[in-house]
């Protein structure tokens, strides 16, 4: 009887803690959603409420109206930059990771240390020379500059993650293929990539998220607003007359949506998820 009561008590405590932590995690998202549905006078009321009294979709209409708000331009730029950076990082990374996983060669441990060092590196440390290099290459104020730097920023992590997926592919499969006369390049395309495709997808998601989230490089490499990515573009609207809270919240939610969807999909298909792979972030 006593034990039963103790169990009930610990169960209640467990659910209280669980609900508390979930509320703390979700609260800012909830505020974002609710504010995006509030008319402006409610959003800046001195007596703030959580739920809107009047629900409006005007902020979403405004966000998608190019004459009011350049959201779609920024969104397009972010898409181009993140997609290309992630795609190229994964493509180059596949070959690098394959070499690190399956091939024996000199300087392998040196390469490994080099990747490890770059992996720990922060972009902020190279901001000055990279700015000079990008300018001297004539890439200042282009999307290409951000793409190139994002490839480099994500490549070591991509290789580490891909290598850990490739390591799980048994050697015997490859040996059989080599007896059949396949070259290494063919093996990568016909065996490694198909067998590790879900892992490769998760690396793509990782690289995409890093590029989508970048503010540092996008803010110094690009000066005209037609090339602004979402982070730089939205931040530049801060403290301007365009800074309508509801609109900014709608834009924030729409900015978060692609990566959250991609992450949810990749989690569903992949057992070993991104964060467990020691992903930088």
């Amino acid at each position: 009887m006593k034990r039963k009561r103790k169990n009930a008590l610990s169960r209640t405590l467990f659910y209280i803690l669980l609900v508390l932590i979930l509320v703390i995690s979700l609260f800012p998202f909830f505020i974002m959603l609710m504010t995006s549905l509030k008319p402006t006078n409610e959003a800046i009321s001195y007596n703030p409420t959580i739920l809107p009294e009047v629900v409006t979709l005007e902020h979403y209409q405004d966000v998608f109206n190019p004459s009011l708000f350049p959201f779609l331009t920024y969104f397009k730029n972010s898409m181009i930059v993140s997609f290309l950076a992630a795609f190229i990082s994964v493509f180059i990374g596949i070959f690098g990771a394959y070499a690190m996983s399956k091939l024996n060669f000199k300087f392998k441990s040196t390469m490994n240390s080099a990747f490890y060092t770059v992996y720990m590196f922060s972009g902020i440390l190279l901001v000055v020379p990279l700015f000079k290099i990008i300018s001297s290459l004539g890439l200042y104020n282009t999307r290409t500059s951000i793409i190139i730097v994002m490839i480099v920023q994500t490549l070591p992590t991509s290789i580490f993650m891909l290598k850990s997926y490739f390591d799980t592919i048994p050697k015997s499969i490859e040996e059989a293929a080599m007896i059949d006369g396949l070259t290494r390049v063919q093996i990568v395309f016909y065996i490694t990539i198909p067998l590790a495709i879900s892992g490769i997808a998760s690396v793509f998601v990782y690289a995409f998220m890093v590029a989508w989230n970048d503010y540092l490089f996008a803010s110094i490499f690009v000066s005209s607003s037609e090339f602004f990515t979402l982070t730089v573009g939205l931040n530049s609207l801060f403290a301007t007359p365009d800074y309508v809270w509801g609109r900014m919240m709608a834009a924030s939610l729409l900015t978060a949506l692609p990566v959250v969807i991609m992450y949810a999909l990749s989690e569903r298909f992949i057992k070993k998820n991104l964060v467990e792979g020691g992903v930088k972030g």
Partner: protein
Amino acid sequence: MKPPQNPTETRGKNKKIKRRTGDSKIALAFLLPTIILLAGLVLYPMIENIRISFFDVPLNPNLDEIFLGLENYQTILTDRDFYRSLGVTVLYTALTVVGSTILGLGVAMLFNREFRFRKLSRSIIILSYVTPSISLVFAWQYMFNNTYGIINHWLVDVTGILDEAPLWFDNPASSFALVTIFAIWRYFPYAFISFLAILQTMDETLYEAAEIDGANAWQKFVNITLPAIRPVLITIVTLRTIWTFYMFNDVYLLTKQVDVIGVYLYEQAFSQNDMGQAAAISVVLFVILFTVIYFSRRKVDVTNET
């Protein structure tokens, strides 16, 4: 990190050598794009950075750079703002790492049992970690707004915990508290996921045996849980320390009141337009980073597969 066993190794010596060189060529070909990119955009910039640190670099590339010798280093090493920024960064890093690790471990232990909606709850917790900073920053700026933010409304008007509303974006001390709370909130899921993964591999019978021996919860934690999670703990603390130390995005976007070292460097380079000085700061930070990497190399498992 041993290289995989080569199955041909036991066969003739000649064959082994042939196989090795064959691998080396193809390995070089496969790694070439990576090597070129890292050499061109990491290694070369690092060297260039050291060179720049000895010069006064005008923003206009057509003007000549002026050699200054060690002047940039003298300036920063005698600059009180630099040390203040370092101090702020160390405090910010320490609080964030300790806070996010302990919270992550606590929540992971809470989740280490069966309950309904466990998967959904886990996904909700990871949300702050995967959402882009810019979205989160806007939500926080709104919630903590000095005049119409809901947090100040609760703290002052509703509950009366505080007599006066903290000016989260104007007062440096409040701003510091804000960026630290934000970092703990945003990054504890990383620790949570890693700890949960290892907790789930642990043997339940160890706890049962300890219970029979009469161990209390704290004793069980210290004697069973802690030794088991140690490798993950070390990895998480090391990586999080480095990444927080060089944090730029989150702090800079949230408030301009907290100049952690990343922000200080950025402002030197792109607001003060003093590239040479910024480069010298980078070099000093390089030295710190390499020292940490050197000592952490053996203890940190990047793949975190435990």
